[in-house]
Structures are given as C-alpha cells and as structure tokens.
C-alpha cells in the first residue's frame, strides 16, 4: 500500500485530526502531561507521509498514475440537487512542497513546545489545537476544489483564534484573538464572494482543474479581474497585507511556538499559496497582478519601516513577517510580462515561502527561548547582552537573522534575490506597466536594506551590549532545555543551508516546474522550459544594500549606542510615526471601530425599546383575541349545540349565497 500514495494521502490530515480529537476528549482527564506525545506522533507521521508523497510526486513523469499528472483521491462530500461537492484531495508539486514545509516545521515546533509549554495548565488544550491546526493546514494544501479549501481556510482561522487567545484570561490575548479572527474574516468575505463568482461563471464547478480549464476560454476579462481581486482579498486578510495587516502584530499575544508555527511559517502563507494555486487565473488578469504587486511592495516597505522602531522583539519579527509576505506577493504579482516570467515568478514566491518558513520559525522560536529565560519579558529595553547567557539561542538566532537580512549565501539571500530579479524583469521597458514594476523593484531593494537594519538591530539589542537581565527572570536565567534547543539547531541548519542547496542548483524551481507549473499552466503559456538564470547584478546590488543595513545596525547599536537616541530625537516626527505603526491602528479605530460602536449602540436602543416593544405588542395580540373569544367557551351544552347549529347556518349562507 505504500507504493501508491492514493492509499495514504488522506492520512496526512487524518493523523493530526485524530490526535486532536483524542487529546481533546481525553487530554484533560487522562493524558494531561503526556498529551504532547500524540500531537508529536501525529505531526511526525504526517511529516513522513508528506516526504513519501513528495518522492511519489517527483516520481511522476508526465502522465503517470491513472493518467493524472498529480495524485488524486475522491470522495463525495455532499450533493444537493445536481450539484456535487466532492471531498477530493490532490497532490502535485506545489502541494507536496507545502506539505513537507508545514509538517516538517510543525513537527519541530511541536517538539519545542513540550519544553516551552511545560507546566502550563492548558497543556493538553495547546496540543489539541496545534494538532487541529496541522490537520486543517494540510487539508488546505491538499484540497482539490475551492469548497474544501475554504473549509480548511476557516479551520486554520479557527485554530489561530484558539491559539492566539490561548491565555484567554489575559484581556489583551482575548482581544488579540478576536481581532485576528474578525480582521481575517473581513478578507474571507471577499474570498467567498470570489468563490461564488467562480461557481456561477465557470459552469457551476469549483474543482481547480475545471475552473482553470474554463478560465482559459473565459471572455469576460473585467469579471476575471474582479474574481482575482476578490480571491486576493482573502489572501490579504490571511497573509496580513495592507490594510488588513493590523491583526498579525497583536497575534503575538499567543505562545511563541504558535507565533512561529501559525503566524510565521505556515498559516499566514496560506494566502500566498492561494494566489500561487490560482496563477492560471491571475495569469489571465495582469491588472489584478499589478494590484497584487503594488499592495505587496507597499506592505513590505511599510512593515519594514514600522519594524525599525519597535521595542518588542516578537513584534519586530511579526512586522518582518508581514514584510516578507509582501515579498512573496510581489513575486506573484510580477509574473506579467510573459509566460516564462510567470513560471519563474511563482516558483520564486514559493521558494521564498519555503526558506522563510525555516528562518522565521527559527527566529520566533529563538525569541521564545529568550522569553523563556527572561521570565516572560520580551521588551528589548529590559534585557541585553545575552549572548553568553544563552549561547545556543544566540548562535541559532544569528543564523536566522542572517538569513532574514539576506546575508549572501544564507537561505533568505537566494530566495529574495530571485524575487527581486523577477520584479526587475517585469520592469523591463516595453512590457506591461514596466514603469511601475521598476519602482516596485527599487522599493523591494530599499526594503532589503531596512530588513538588514531592523533584524540586526533586534539581534544586537538582545545579544550584545552589557549583560542585563530583568528581575522577572530571577537569578537563574539559563539556556533552554535540549528539547527546545534541538529544534533550534535543526532549523538553523535549514536557515543556513536550504538556500544554498536548492537555490543555485535550481532543484527547487526545477521540481516545481516539472510537477506543477508545466502541467498546470496552459501549454501555450510556456514557450519552453523556464530558465533560472541568476541575475548577478541584482544579487550584488541587494547584497550591498542588505550589508549596509546590517553595518548601520552594528554602528548604531554596538559601536555608538548613543547614536540611536540622538537620531530619534533629531527626527522625532518620523520616529514617532514608525513607532506608532503609522497610526494605522488608531486610524482604523477612529474611522471604523468607533462609528460602528456608535451604530451598534443606536441599534441596541432601537432594538430594546422599539423593536422589542413592537414584538411584545404583537405577542400580546393572540392572547388578547383569545380573551375576547373565551366567553364563547362557557361550558353550557345547549349553548354549544346552538353554536354548532349557527355554524352550519353560517356555512349555508357562505356557500349557498356566495
């Protein structure tokens, strides 16, 4: 049975789901401190199966298994009338890569959490939710139609809500959970509308194959752009792009492993996955792609600017996540010029997704390790110089920071440069909206410099300078246990080496092209096999910018620590703008939340006094009429007989004299 992946494909979401169910039922009473075994078991099982799927997919050449170019299994979920919604799963190159990323990182984070969550009263609940998340996320990437995708999409949203609000007794955590859920739901409305439009316009089918096939001959271009933008609005919510990015920094209220797993490595990349999956749609609507690219570049720059001044280590990382997601969307939005570029663009985006998952999970887990040692304090003003106290954390964090900053040869360097190269190509004179893309390219490069700066600012503030430990940590601030440091080391290896292994060799792009891009995209869309020529000029340029950012951070926070403060004083306005997140939260609060609250109050008054009053009045009517006719039922038998006779007489009148 292990030769044919169709037999075990369903197990990938099923194993974590089973673990979640068992922990959910038995966790509190029986499993208690042993709950993690099931979660880790489910995650590792799913991970092994994912690798097997990957190898099975790479074994497919052209049309192999059952004439399909991907692995597919099919159940009928429900059908109403003549509409069948199949519960079908498929695995092609994209899915396999996503599966491996999600389950591998998920397994490591589950292991890390054993140490991090140790002793928490909600220990079983945490692992139940993490397992449920893994089940939903793997289902999301395995889905073969938009309905299953949407169900899993909401599933990961639910898990995010549960885990952000994990410490629900803390008001800020409960608020953050609600905010995360509601803001992403805002995007989901668009996503669902997009799905409905697809359903109505593409012959009442929601299966990817059918939809993409029909989209090719779809002639209503404007409608296609609208559909793409609606789908993208779902991605904007889930992947925290401007203007719906405000939930992600607040979501850092959740436990650090959750931030690493859900809000850095996997769930927030679901939007990238969705847009990549729908490339056959977006490829037909360059206008939509331009919107994607503009929003993405704007988000990347904005988030990087905000990250410059944040004092909370996890928030810095959260804004860097938003910024990096912006890079991915930038790539997805840049594949407009021709079809070869489109192929390179989507593989670049997925490649960045892949490497980002490693180094960002690593950074968050490192931040978690710091937080663990500092007694729950994560404000960088409260501690410094931890490099001797937390040696493993320090070195692994450095690896992650280097990868994020784009230090040459580390993983982030390769993937980010591919994206910049794609954008630059899109900006070549003569192509669609080339001027705008050229501008976006420079924004991307500038953001790379900012990234180097803020990443290493956080690194230097945390690990360099004089050794300072907050009093909450007590006198025994120490390195985390091996169960936490081991995943850090594994991820560090990935953060350093993943890019080098897959980037210059072209394995990653080649695999995706052969098993996803080439079969998925229309034949005429790809003239010939796409080439991953590295643009050495871009590489050099962006490296210099990134290293400059790093150097500036070194200068400002190690060599001349006073410089930062004086700069902040010199440019108070700009500094405050960045520190207050460009006042976007306040803007949303006063422009949207406040008016809605007032409206809700009004509605409440209307409901309580007017609507309720009317309803009560209506409710009194039957009783009132009842009182009025009650005397008829007076208990006198002769009267009853009389009424019966009168009734007959009445009917005579009504019928005969009609």
């Amino acid at each position, binding site marked *: 049975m292990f030769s044919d992946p169709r037999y075990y494909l369903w197990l990938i979401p099923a194993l974590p789901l089973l673990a979640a169910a068992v922990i959910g039922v038995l966790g509190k009473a029986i499993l208690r401190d042993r709950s993690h075994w099931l979660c880790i078991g489910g995650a590792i099982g799913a991970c092994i199966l994912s690798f097997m799927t990957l190898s099975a997919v790479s074994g497919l050449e052209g049309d192999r298994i059952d004439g399909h170019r991907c692995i597919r299994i099919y159940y009928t979920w429900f059908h109403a009338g003549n509409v069948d919604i199949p519960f079908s799963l498929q695995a092609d190159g994209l899915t396999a890569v996503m599966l491996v990323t999600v389950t591998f990182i998920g397994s490591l984070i589950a292991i890390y959490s054993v140490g991090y969550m140790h002793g928490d009263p909600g220990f079983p609940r945490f692992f139940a939710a993490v397992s449920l998340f893994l089940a939903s996320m793997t289902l999301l990437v395995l889905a073969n139609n938009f309905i299953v995708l949407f169900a899993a999409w909401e599933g990961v949203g639910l898990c995010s809500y549960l885990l952000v609000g994990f410490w629900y007794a803390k008001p800020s955590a409960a608020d953050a959970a609600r905010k995360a859920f509601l803001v992403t739901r805002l995007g989901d409305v668009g996503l669902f509308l997009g799905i409905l439009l697809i359903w109505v316009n593409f012959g009442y089918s929601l299966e990817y194959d059918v939809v993409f096939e029909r989209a090719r001959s779809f002639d209503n271009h404007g409608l296609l752009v609208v559909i793409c933008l609606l789908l993208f609005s779902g991605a904007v919510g889930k992947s925290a792009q401007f203007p719906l990015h405000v939930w992600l920094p607040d979501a850092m209220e959740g436990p650090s492993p959750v931030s690493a797993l859900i809000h850095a490595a996997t769930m927030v990349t679901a939007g990238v996955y969705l847009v990549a999956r729908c490339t056959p749609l977006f490829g037909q609507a360059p206008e939509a792609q331009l919107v994607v690219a503009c929003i993405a570049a704007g988000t990347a720059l904005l988030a990087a600017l905000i990250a410059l001044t944040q004092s909370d280590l996890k928030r810095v990382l959260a804004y860097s996540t938003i910024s990096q997601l912006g890079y991915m969307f930038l790539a997805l939005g840049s594949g407009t010029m021709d079809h070869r570029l489109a192929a390179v663009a989507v593989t670049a985006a997925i490649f960045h997704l892949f490497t980002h998952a490693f180094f960002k999970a690593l950074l968050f887990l490192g931040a978690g390790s710091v937080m663990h040692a500092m007694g729950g304090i994560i404000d960088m003003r409260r501690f410094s110089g931890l490099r001797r106290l937390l040696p493993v954390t320090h070195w692994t964090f450095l690896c992650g920071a280097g990868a994020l900053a784009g230090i040459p040869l580390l993983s982030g360097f390769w993937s980010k440069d591919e994206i910049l190269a794609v954008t630059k190509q899109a900006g070549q004179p003569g192509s669609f909206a080339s001027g705008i893309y050229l501008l976006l390219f420079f924004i991307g490069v500038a953001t790379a410099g900012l990234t180097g700066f803020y990443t290493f600012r956080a690194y230097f503030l945390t690990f360099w300078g004089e050794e300072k430990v907050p009093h909450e940590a007590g006198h025994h601030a120490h390195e985390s246990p091996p169960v936490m440091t081991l995943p850090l080391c594994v991820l560090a290896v990935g953060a350093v080496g993943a890019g080098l292994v897959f980037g210059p060799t072209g394995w990653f792009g080649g695999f995706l092209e052969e098993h996803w891009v080439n079969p998925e995209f229309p034949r005429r869309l790809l003239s010939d096999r796409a080439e991953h020529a590295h643009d050495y000029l871009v590489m050099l340029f962006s490296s210099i910018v990134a290293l400059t950012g790093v150097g500036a951070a070194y200068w400002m926070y190690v060599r001349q620590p006073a410089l930062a403060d004086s700069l902040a004083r010199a440019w108070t306005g700009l500094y405050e703008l960045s520190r207050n997140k460009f006042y976007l939260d306040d803007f949303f609060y006063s422009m949207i939340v406040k008016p809605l609250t007032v409206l809700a109050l009004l509605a409440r008054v209307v409901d309580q006094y007017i609507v309720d009053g009317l309803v009560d009045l209506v409710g009194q009517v039957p009783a009132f009429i009842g009182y009025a006719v009650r005397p008829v039922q007076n208990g006198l038998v002769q009267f009853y007989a009389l009424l*019966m006779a009168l*009734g007959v007489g009445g009917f005579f009148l*009504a019928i005969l004299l009609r």
Partner: protein
Amino acid sequence: MNDLQNALLAGQFRYILPEIVLAVAATGIFIGGTFRSGRYLWSWAALGSLVASLFVLTITAGFVLPSGEAGRTATFSTPLLFDSLANFVRVLAIVAGILLVLFSWNEVPDRHAADYLACLLVIIGGVGLTACANDLVSLYLALELISIPTYILLYLPRHDDAAQEAALKYFLLSIFSSALLLFGFSYLYGLTGTTNIAAILHTLYGQGGGDMPAVAQIALITVVAGLGFRITAAPFHFYAPDVYQGAPTVGAALLASLPKLAGFIALLRVLGFVTPDGVLVPVAGRPHVLPGMALSDQVPILFWFLAAFTMSLGNLLAVLQDNLKRLLAYSSVAHAGYMLVALAAAPYLSERSSGSDGVHALLYYLVAYGVMTIGAFAVIAFLSTPERPVDNVEDLAGLSGSHPYVALMLAVFMFSLIGMPLTAGFTGKFLIFFGAMNVVGEQADLYRWLAVIGMLNAAVGGWYYLRIIAVMYLRTALRPIQGRRNVPGLVTLIVCAVLTIGLSIPPGANVLLDAVKNATGIKSTPSPIAQR
C-alpha cells in the same frame, strides 16, 4: 339483486375478519369481566386480541379482491370495500389501540378494566370498518360503533361531577352531530336514489361537477358539519376542552386520536377524495376536475374557511390555557385545522404534476399527530399520581431535574407539535403547507394566504408549547414530581418518542411516505391533470 351481488356480499365476511376478531374478543372480555376483575389479565387479553387482529389483517390483506366486472359490481353494490387505504387505516387503528392499551395498563382501575378494554376494542373495530365503508348506512353504523363505546368509556372510571358532565356533554353533542350527518345522508339518498358511496359519487359527477344543485350543497355542508364534530373542527369543537379535561387521561388521548382518524377517513370517502377505480370518469371538456371536486366546486371553499377558522380559534384559545388537558384539547383543534388545509388544497394538487398531494400530506399528518399527541397525554398520565396530580402547566416545574428522560421526551413531543425540524410534526406541516403553496391556477393566491395563516398559527402555537418546555427546564418545583414505576406507560412514551423522530428522518420517513402513497396510489383515480 343478482347472483354476482349475492356472491360478493357473502364474500365480504372473510375480509372483515380482523374486525370480527376484535368484536369477539370484546364480547368475551365484556362477559369475562363480570366474573373476574383485574386490569393485568384483561390488558393482556386485549393486547393479544389486537395482535391477533393485526395478524389476521396481514392475511386478509393478501386475499385477492374482485376485479374486472366483478370488481365494478362490487364497487357499486357492496357496503364495504377493502382497498389499500382501508388496510392502511386499519393498521393505524390497531397500532394506536396497542399504544392505548399499554398506556392504560396501570391507569384504569381493576373494577372497570374489562369494560374499558372491551370498549376500546370495539372502537378500534369501528375505526377499521369506517375505513372500509362504501355505503352511507355502513359508514354511519361504523361511526356509531365508535361513538357508543366512547360514551361508556367516558362515563366508566369516575363518578365525580366533572366526569359525568363530560360524558353527558359528549353524548348530547355527539348525537346532535350524528343527526346532522344523517340529515346530510338523507339528502344524498334523495338526490341520487342510492346509499352506495361510489354510486353517489358517480351519479353526482355525471352531472358534470362544478356548481352543484343547492340540495347537494346542503347535503355537503351538513355531512361536513356532522363529521366536523369528530375531527374537532370549529365551530363543532366546543365539547373538546370540557370533555378532555373532565375525562381520564386515557380517555382524552383516545378521543384526541381515534375519532379524528375515523372522521378524516370518512371525509375522504364520502367526498370522493379517494375513490375506487371507475367511479370518476374524466369528462370531456372539464379536464381540470380533480377527485375532491367530485361533489362540487364548493368543497375546497368550504374546507378553506373551516381550516382557517379551526386552526386560528384552536391556537388563540390554547394560548390562554393553564390546564394541560385543556391546552392539548385546543391544540388538537388547531392540528385539525392544519389537516383541513391539506384537504382544502387536495383538489388542486396531484403527486405527479406538482410533487405534492393533499391526501398524502393529510395521512402523514394523521400518523404524526397521533404519535405526538398520544405521547404527550402519556407523559401526563405517567407523571400523575393521586397524591400529586399533574393537571396544570405549572405542575411540570422542575421535571428536567426529577425525570430528565421523561422531560426530554415531552420536549420532543412539544417540539414536534410546534413543528421543529427533525420531528414528524415538522415533516407533516411541511408537506401540508408546501402543498398549499404549490397550488397553481386561479386559486393559487387564495391557498398561499391559507398557508400564511397556517404558518402564523404555527408561530402562535410555538408560544404555548414552548411555555411547557420552559416550565420543565427553567423552573424548580416546590414539591418534586414523584412518579411511579410504570413499565408499560414508559414503553408507550418511548415508542411514541422514537416514532416522532424516526418518522421524520430516513428510513422511517421514507417507509411512512411510501405506505401513504401506496394507500392512495393504487386504488385512487389518477387525476386528470396527471394524465395529460
């Protein structure tokens, strides 16, 4: 009378063996009861005879009915007909009888048990014969076979003023309604010269349907009024609250179920909603005349008014009731109104053209109504003890604490009576109102309004049923309900609750719907619309 008719008449006896079994058993119990009292003995005997009757019925249902020329002669001459509708109703009556015997197992005092059970058997036989009746005389006799034992049954157990008053009221008004019925029958006879229902329908239909002579309309109204008493249609329902309240709980449950079944079947028969083959021949030039129109265009109008009036009055008065039995009495009036909606819409519907059928909906609702109403009365009987009677809604306070499962079952019955999904009450209401909404043609608006009135009534009904649930679950009792060990009573409850839910979901719903379709489908005349 020719030889064929004689032979057919003689052959009828073997088909009414189930009723004969019941009659013999009833006689035996009447006589035996004078020698030995004891409710368990006679309950077993009654239960045994009901099961035996059911068994005999399964055999006789297999007997070949006369067909061809003999069948046609039988249709137009024999007093009884044994089509699938008759068998369906007989099965229902016997099953209801079994439930009522179980229900009354521990309720009836030893002294009266034999008489009570014998009366019950006779009533069930009467319902069976009503379903078979093909002649005004046999129909009237069958209906009296239901009425007369009911008088005894109401008078038997208690001799307090309330019980006597209830029995007397029922008696007086019942004979008044019988008089109305006979009056109508006599006009029908005078109009057509025959008492055979099939022949009457044939004759009247031969005049082309549509507007009938005034005499026929008078007959129609008085017949509906006479039968309206049994189905508690307003304004012939007045006895119900007083009688239900005064009667023992078992008697109220019986009154609420069996006479209603008999009354509706009699309406179906007499007015020609369901007719044997060959009775209604489509007339050229009037292709739209449907079975229920056999008597006149006035039938649907009459039922329209009757339905609207009955359900509105029943629900409005039920809102004010505190006494449980009175409340259920008005509720039974209201549900009679819903069923009349089905009859009112039936002439304009046919299964094959619009996917809904008034008669099917009515039969389904009769079953659903019977199950949930018997169940609701069974809960009251189950919980009442002489020391702590459960009379008023308030007496149910705290039931969820003392009897969680009984409370749950009562909640199921109440939800079903409201018409919440996943209960038989919902499916029944859905079929009825869906049918009314499906009427096409000139009358469509009229029936849409009727459906709207019905839905508004269902909303009003929700109020008083939910009140019972609220009292059970949200209030605490000063004196907790004691209850006692009563296995047969509990069995009745469980069976009713299981059926209430089971008949609304597959496979139960499909089984019942198929049975209903089978009951009317085989012998009824396909409607002309469907034939087009």
